[in-house]
């Protein structure tokens, strides 16, 4: 574990990846890359209707654009995410479809198209085992799809409950429980019924539960899955916790409770938040900055509190829409921005008193 108390931290820009001709909405590291001699791969998607795949060259260490996935989506590609094995890439688009891509014979091929949403699809997420996929969109619905053999996807449930468009869906990292956040200011927790294939809303985290007071844009879990962070247009990030033992006992109704609100740090909308395996929360926001937060040791009496570890001003020239830590190299971060670029960052430490 890093010693957050004694070290000085710096977020260093390793590389700026250029190629998209419109804003970058989302970035995703490919699992099981960047380790054991496998070159690191990161994908990005954009308002230019394309997805780009960037691969790190083993020789130079620099990322290069390896593929451009185009002529499939006809509108903005809002979100991209790799299946847990890294075999498939799912992309959600304003064209109302979700595309599934596979690397076949040296090329990325669209092997399946998921249709059903009435209009813009805004987010897509794989569950931990890669057997389920969730999508959400402006039609206020959340769809759960079962992954069948031969790249077949079957819709198993359409969840209505949000009263406005749904910005993001995210599966819990260990249990098959789904989370969605919305323009209606709430986060909803969805669990499977015990005796049937149906899904239901197990909990709504809204203003009455100390929740957000404006659009909730994103959420992310810590490594153990007992805590969740959410970010919002209300300029705050919030930390939520649950009883992980109860959750893993198969009870989707293990309640989530608000444990703290990080306010006063952001001046404009926070679009993205991601929790690293090492416990560092990263946020990307409309003030062009990237911020890192860690749990503070000072606040253990009244429950955990979080402190700002560092703020990288002018991380991009425009809004930061996406931040994601690499799951393998824990101190490596990717970000995507309205300025059309993707940036790769390394978090480094310099111990004080060491010259």
């Amino acid at each position: 574990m890093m010693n957050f108390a004694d070290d000085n931290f710096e977020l260093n820009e390793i590389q700026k990846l250029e190629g998209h001709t419109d804003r970058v909405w989302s970035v995703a590291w490919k699992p099981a890359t960047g380790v054991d001699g496998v070159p690191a791969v990161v994908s990005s998607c954009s308002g230019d209707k394309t997805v780009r795949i960037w691969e790190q060259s083993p020789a130079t260490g620099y990322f290069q654009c390896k593929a451009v996935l185009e002529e499939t989506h006809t509108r903005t590609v809002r979100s991209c995410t790799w299946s847990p094995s890294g075999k498939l890439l799912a992309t959600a688009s304003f064209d109302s479809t979700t595309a599934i891509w596979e690397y076949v014979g040296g090329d990325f091929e669209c092997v399946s198209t998921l249709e059903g949403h009435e209009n813009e699809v805004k987010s897509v997420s794989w569950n931990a085992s890669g057997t389920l996929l969730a999508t959400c969109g402006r039609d206020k619905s959340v769809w759960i799809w079962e992954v069948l053999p031969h790249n077949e996807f079957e819709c198993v449930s359409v969840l209505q409950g949000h009263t406005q468009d749904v910005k993001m869906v995210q599966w819990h990292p260990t249990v098959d429980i789904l989370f969605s956040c919305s323009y209606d200011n709430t986060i909803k927790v969805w669990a499977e019924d015990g005796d049937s294939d149906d899904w239901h809303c197990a909990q709504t985290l809204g203003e009455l539960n100390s929740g957000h007071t404006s659009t909730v844009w994103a959420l992310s879990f810590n490594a153990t899955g007992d805590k969740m962070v959410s970010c919002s247009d209300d300029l705050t990030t919030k930390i939520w916790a649950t009883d992980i033992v109860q959750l893993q006992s198969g009870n989707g109704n293990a309640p989530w409770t608000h444990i703290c609100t990080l306010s006063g740090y952001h001046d404009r909308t926070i679009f993205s938040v991601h929790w690293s395996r090492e416990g560092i929360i990263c946020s990307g926001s409309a003030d062009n900055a990237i911020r890192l937060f860690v749990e503070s040791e000072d606040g253990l009496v009244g429950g955990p509190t979080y402190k700002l570890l560092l703020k990288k001003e002018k991380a991009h020239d425009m809004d930061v829409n996406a931040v994601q830590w690499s799951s393998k190299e824990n101190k490596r971060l990717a970000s995507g921005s309205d300025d059309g670029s993707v940036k790769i960052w390394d978090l480094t430490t310099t111990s004080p008193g060491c010259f």
Partner: protein
Amino acid sequence: MVSGLINANPTVYEKKERRARISPGDVDEYLVEPIDQQEIFDHIRDIKDPEHPYSLEELKVITEDAIEVDDKQSHVRVTFTPTVEHCSMATVIGLCLRVKLMRCLPPRYKVDIRVAPGTHATEAAVNKQLSDKERVAAALENPNIIDMVDECLAPSYECR
């Protein structure tokens, strides 16, 4: 006037005289001139109302005083006043203002567009929609909406 319009008989005001921005002898071509209230106003004053053949200036939907600019912070806020309280065109007007400034201002600029407090029945909802860039981006991929916006923007000056 055709009936069925939301505000069939709007009050039309006189246009302000257009001021020259800089006197010709004064120009220092190496000087980076800060963006001010007047420049922003000049960008948006001639935008046509979605319902009427009048400009937003003539209908007093926008005034120079309702523009706040901080060039150092690269921030501008435009507060507009719909002609009637229930004007369903408010989001279209807001979208036109946003698109025009998006096209004219340097990309470093953060633009906030909002309805003047107390002038619109669903003020909070309109403001929320106008500040959600994802919804704005989606709207601008809709050919019908972009046609409507372009029609309103047609009489206003091209950006430099």
